[in-house]
């Protein structure tokens, strides 16, 4: 699965994107955040407040409790500040 990071999530993780193999127990957006936090200090720092992280699945907003099983691409980012 392709993961994309934006804004301070990107800066803290230190990557714009990566491709990962998800463990079978990762089913929802919240599961993904919890699993990523275990992958190293930079992830733990980026996701220290998982409740503020927004998710998009295949370029559509999703809630953290939604399933990501069918996703090709998941993006993680802070609340939007455009406009």
């Amino acid at each position, binding site marked *: 699965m392709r993961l994309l990071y934006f804004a301070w999530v990107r800066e803290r993780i230190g990557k714009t994107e990566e491709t990962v193999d998800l463990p079978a127990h990762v089913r929802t957006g919240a599961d993904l955040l919890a699993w990523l936090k275990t992958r190293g200090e930079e992830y733990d720092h980026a996701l220290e407040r998982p409740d503020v992280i927004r998710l998009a699945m295949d*370029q559509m907003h999703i809630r953290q409790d939604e399933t990501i099983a069918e996703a090709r691409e998941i993006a993680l980012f802070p609340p939007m500040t455009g406009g």
Partner: protein
Amino acid sequence: MTAIPITIRVQAEPFDSEAEVASLTAGRTDVGAVVTFQGLCRSEGGSLAALELEHYPGMAEAEIRRVAEAAAARWPVLGLAAIHRHGKIAPGAPIVLVVATSSHRQAAFEAAAFLMDFLKTRAPFWKKEHHADGREGGWVDARETDDAAAARWGGNDA
């Protein structure tokens, strides 16, 4: 989906608001009301050297289009345009343009305000500040007033 013209663009270059209005009004005589919104970069009292706008290519355009389609379903608009810039933007320079046309003014005013409210809270853009004194700027925090502005339209329209 609607049959009205909807222009959505995400670009680094400045936009031409006059040209966008003309493209929604030229050669037709059913448009009675044209509302435009332009968002400009403020200097915050001189402390800001520039805003840098990051976006999620592909999703940014798609999400703005979803918001525009929701506006077109809700109000009898005759045309909509939304153009959002990315990259470094200096104080005084334009960031975003929204245009709404309709027969009567209320639909154009409300559709334009709706588009801006949901563009702010749903379109994947993020602003980073560059300070005039050389200090590293931070990411702009989302404003609760923007969530409140979007919430006033009720439901989950966009």
